[in-house]
Each structure stands twice: as C-alpha cells, then as structure tokens.
C-alpha cells in the first residue's frame, strides 16, 4: 500500500487520488495499531509495542513523496513509518508475533523493522541513531550521483541527544539530500518536552545548523504533505537538508500495557483527540475534495479486511527455526562464527 508520488499539484491543491491514498494509509496504520493493541492484551506480542495512534498524518504525508529507493530510518515508534513506506500489515503483525514471515524474519520485533527492498532501512531501539544513518544514506546518494533521499523520523526526545546535533550539522556542511522529521508529540515517555528542552521550538533549530526549519501542524496530513513535498524536492535537486517539526500527540500510552496517568491530564488528551488526524482528513475529503461518503466507506471496509486477514496470517505463520538463530552475524554465511 505504499503511496505513489503524484504529479505535483498547484500550491494549496492536492490531487484527489493522492488525498484518498492518505486516508487509506492513515486508516491502515490506525486499524493495524488497534489490532496490535488487542493482540498485545492477548499475549501474542512478546516484547514492547509502541503504537503510532494519533500521529498517522506524518508518516502518510511524508512517505507519499518517497520512492521505494528512498531510504527511511526510524525509531522505536516506527510501525507507521514501516506501513507508510510499504511494509504490508501482515509482515508487520507477523514480526511482532515473532514469526518467520515477519518483515525482520522474527529477529526484530516492534523496534527493529527492516524491509530494505522497499527502502525501510530499520527502526531502532535506541533513540537517535536514525538521524545519523539517514545522513549517511544522503551521503551515499550524493556520492552515487542519484536523486534519492534519506529520511529520519524521530520523536522530540531525540532532539536533545547528541546524534541530532551531529547529524544535522554533518548533513548541512555536506549539503546532503536528507529530511529530518521530528514528530513532536510533546512527551518522551512521561517527560514533557517543555521541561526537557532549553529551547522547545524544534523548527527554529534548523537555522542553528544552516538549514530550513519548518514547524507545522502534524495532525494535518495536507500540511505535512505540502511541507514534505518542498523539502523532498529541494533535497532531490541538490538543495540540501530540511528539518520538519510536526506538532502532534500520541493518544495511547507510551507503550502498550504501560500505565498512562499522572503526567498529563485527561482534558489535554481529549483536546488532542478532538484533533484526530484521520477524522480531520475525512472531513477534508468530504468537504474540500467532494468525495462521496461511499468511497470512504469502501476504503474503511477494505482496510478492515486487510488488517483482519493480516492478523490471521500472522497468527498462523510458522515460528523461525531455532537453528537459524546465529545466521547473518557476518556477511558470508559460509564463514564460521569466529569463536
């Protein structure tokens, strides 16, 4: 379900089929996450599970501009990025179930999602490295004289980490084709970003590194799509990196099964739920794009079917063979492990 890039519409205008695709992608992420949350309660997920609920517009709006040969590097909250880049829900769910059919063949789980064939270069259990690796992808793409781009998705928690400082500076001095997408959901676990940052305006930090920095409404898929479109076009044309700060909110707990009280108010959560990016996209489609409600209901039914079948596929998938546990430590499988 990867989003195909569309011909660039006039500023302020979005091609209707692209807009419908946003809806499909966002809904696929939402329904998959809801399924994962249920599966987590059923004990089918063996490790951590950080859902992307509430932040779907960012992955959908950015990845709509990406080709399979563009490289996405993501973080611990990465299901949405994997799905928007084109990982099928069944491979994501199977991975979280620890099955051989998962996108990482059961080696990774929620925080290590790999599908390099389509440019999903990994999510990471460590906050920060994705910023540097996307910079490195930009380095390769510049060296190889291609117009491919590297994209890093990361939370507000990453911007106070040294990787952010070093990565943005390196991308800037080398003028690399990279997008740095900060999903500012305002909390790192239970630590408020306003507390953790001396300057909580992430977008403003772009100028500190000599690159454009843009702050936008991350729950507005059209706004994300347009800002990312400019940034991707600039990167492909050799104009260097961009920092995007997408203001958003995660409406579920930091991770499934974690307590979610004491650090934010119910009133704040409700206020953000009222800004739900999928509901807003639906309204936009009905009102601004004059899409018939039946078309949306069709997408809703299709997505539900896909996710239901994906869960069944994952549940019925085989476990990885225990004998493969030490494969791929080194590149040549013929070479024995050293010790």
């Amino acid at each position, binding site marked *: 379900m990867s989003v195909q890039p569309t011909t660039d519409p006039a500023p302020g205008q979005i091609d209707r089929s692209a807009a419908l695709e946003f809806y499909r992608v966002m809904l696929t992420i939402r329904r998959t996450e809801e399924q994962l949350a249920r599966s987590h309660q059923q004990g089918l997920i063996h490790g951590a599970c950080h859902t992307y609920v509430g932040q779907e517009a960012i992955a959908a709006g950015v990845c709509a501009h990406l080709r399979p040969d563009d*490289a996405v*590097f993501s973080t611990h909250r990465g299901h949405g990025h994997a799905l928007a880049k084109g990982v099928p829900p069944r491979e994501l769910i199977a991975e979280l179930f620890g099955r051989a059919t998962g996108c*990482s*063949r059961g*080696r*990774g789980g929620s925080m*290590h999602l*790999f599908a*390099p*064939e389509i440019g999903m*270069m*990994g999510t*990471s*259990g*460590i906050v920060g*490295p994705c*910023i*540097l*690796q*996307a*910079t*490195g*992808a930009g*380095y*390769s*793409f*510049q*060296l*190889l004289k291609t117009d491919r781009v*590297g994209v890093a998705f990361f939370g507000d928690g990453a911007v106070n980490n*040294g*990787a952010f*400082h*070093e*990565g943005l*500076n*390196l991308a800037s*001095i*080398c003028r690399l084709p990279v997008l740095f997408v900060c999903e500012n959901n305002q909390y790192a676990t239970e630590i408020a970003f306003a507390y953790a940052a001396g300057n909580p305006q992430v977008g403003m930090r772009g100028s500190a590194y000599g690159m454009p920095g843009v702050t936008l409404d991350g729950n507005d898929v059209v706004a994300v799509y347009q800002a990312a479109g400019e940034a991707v076009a600039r990167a492909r044309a050799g104009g260097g990196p961009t920092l995007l700060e997408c203001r958003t909110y995660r409406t579920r707990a930091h991770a499934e099964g974690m307590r979610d009280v004491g650090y934010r108010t119910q009133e704040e959560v409700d206020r953000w739920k009222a800004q739900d990016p999928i509901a807003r996209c639906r309204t936009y489609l009905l009102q601004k794009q004059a899409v018939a409600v039946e078309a949306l209901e069709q997408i809703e039914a299709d997505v539900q079917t896909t996710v239901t079948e994906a869960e069944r596929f994952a549940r019925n998938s085989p476990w990885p063979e225990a004998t493969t546990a030490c*494969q*791929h*430590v*080194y*590149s*040549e*499988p013929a*070479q*024995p*492990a*050293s*010790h």
Partner: protein
Amino acid sequence: MREITLIEATREALAAAMARDNTIFVVGEGIGPRGGNFNTTTGLYDLYGPERLRDMPISERGFVGMCAGAAMTGSRPIVDFMFVDFILDAMGELINQAAKIQYMSSGRLKMPLILRGCIGIGHSAATHHSGSYFPHFVNIPGFRVVVPTTPYDAKGLFATALVSDDPVIFLEHKSILFHKGAVPEEEYTIPFGQARVARAGQHCTVVAVGAMVGKTLQACERLALAGIEVEVIDPRTLNPLDIQSVLASVHKTGRLLIVDETFQPCGIGAEIAAQVVEQGFDDLDAPVCRLNGAYAPTPYSPTLEAAVVPNVEEIVRAVETLMAA
C-alpha cells in the same frame, strides 16, 4: 624487493581500491588536503577530491553513525580515527548499530565499513592517545578485528578489509607505523583468520599481538643463545581468530605464553588460553601463561610509561619461567 613502511603499505592498498571502486570514501579529521595525521591518505585528496576524502568536524559519533548509514545504502566508507582512542565516543553507533544491522536485517543489508586507527603505548602519548581496545571489539559479534604487524601483512589485510562486507576494525600500532619491510608492488590479499608463524621453534609457543610481536622476536634471539627455541605466532586477525595454528604449535611445543600490551582481564590472552585448554589440554606440559600491560591507565612520564608495557626483558623471563614449569 623494495621496502616500504607499514603506513605506506596500507595507503597503497587504499589507493588501488579507490581507483577501482568509486563507492569508497574516507572520513576523518585532517584526512583531506593534509593527508592524515599519520599519512594514511597522503596524495589521495589530489586524485579524488573532497567527496571521497571528506574532512570532518570533531564529531566522532556523528560521522561513525553517518558512515553506518552510508554503508547500508551502497557505499564503502572508511573512518580514519587517527588515534583509535577517539572511537570510544562512537561506541553506541558501532556496537548497537554497525555490528547488528546485518543480523537484524537477516542478511539483507550489508555493512562494508572500515574503522581504522592507531593504537598502542609509546612516546609519552599519555592515556587518551595510547589505547588499543581490541578486546572490546573482539567481544562483539559482527566485527572483524585486524592487527597487522608487518608492512606486507598490512597491505594484504587492508586489501581484504576493502572488499569485506562486514565492519572491520583495523588497528595499526603507532610504534611500527614507520617500520620498513618488503612489500610487492602488485595487489594481493591476505584472508582474515590465518595466523602467521613469525618464527619457528620447538620448545615453547608465544602468541604475540601487535607491537609485542617485534619485542618477542628480540627476546627470542636472547633465548636462543640459551638454547630455547621459541615459536612465535602472530594471529594478525583477532576476529576471526586462527586458533588452529595456535593448537598446532602447542601440540609441538607443549607450552604457551600470550604476550599482549592491553589489559589482562577478559582479554585476548584469556580467550586464547581458554580455547587451548578446551581443545588442546592433553598437549600442555605446563599451565598457560599470560604477560600483559599493567592494569592501569597509561601514564605520561617515560619511566612510568615504560613500567606499564611488557618489555623484552620481561618476555625473556616469562619464557624462562614457563620453561621451568
């Protein structure tokens, strides 16, 4: 055959590979027009320019992480640390990322990344410019660890690193960088995982690492005068480790000493000793012995510095003690 230095030998391998493969690039501080603090890249900037010899800000974590990303996406980066001590600022990117990406991607991504730096104690470099740290990397699945000791080996092993799809830690001891040795002009490779017998002997086996190979060979001259013929094994690569060559030698001599400048606990000597005890116990006529550098940071003053590195005298005594055991 002509003789060149160890650093010229690796530079020759690098130049040949860069001429052939335009996905290779080097990053580091002063590796561009300056040609590297240790002359690792002299002359290459003029040939290949700033895109392939990219001077970096003092951002070790940043450029190591960047190079990991580049290695995943089609290029072959080389990080030139100058002193390997600076690699410590990048350990997370190395151990959690570079070493694990091939595995976590079930072999679908490669990590052709070279991390090179100068190691070792000497010249009052003091504690932030004297480290070796190879035991740390040998402990991690995913890395190759290479410690060449002759110009010939350095060229062939570096050539192998330049075509490897695994992350390779390539460590050159500062005290031997400018030692000369015979090196063919043509290209050749030396496979990882093959030890070199630096001296043949039948009374005792010494495995020596890095600069300790040269010191051990000096000690052997004195021991030979006393009728003790030592076999010296230079592992050349610590991962993969050619334990078979060590076992074959111990089968012949019955005695084993490991000489290593780095710290003793959990070190390469401990690993070799354990493997020999596991696989060659019946060949041993005496307990396996280790001679290591002192378990302390490296001091500055020449008298203090000399006290923390094994010297020729100590190696002679360690062998004599082992022979008496």
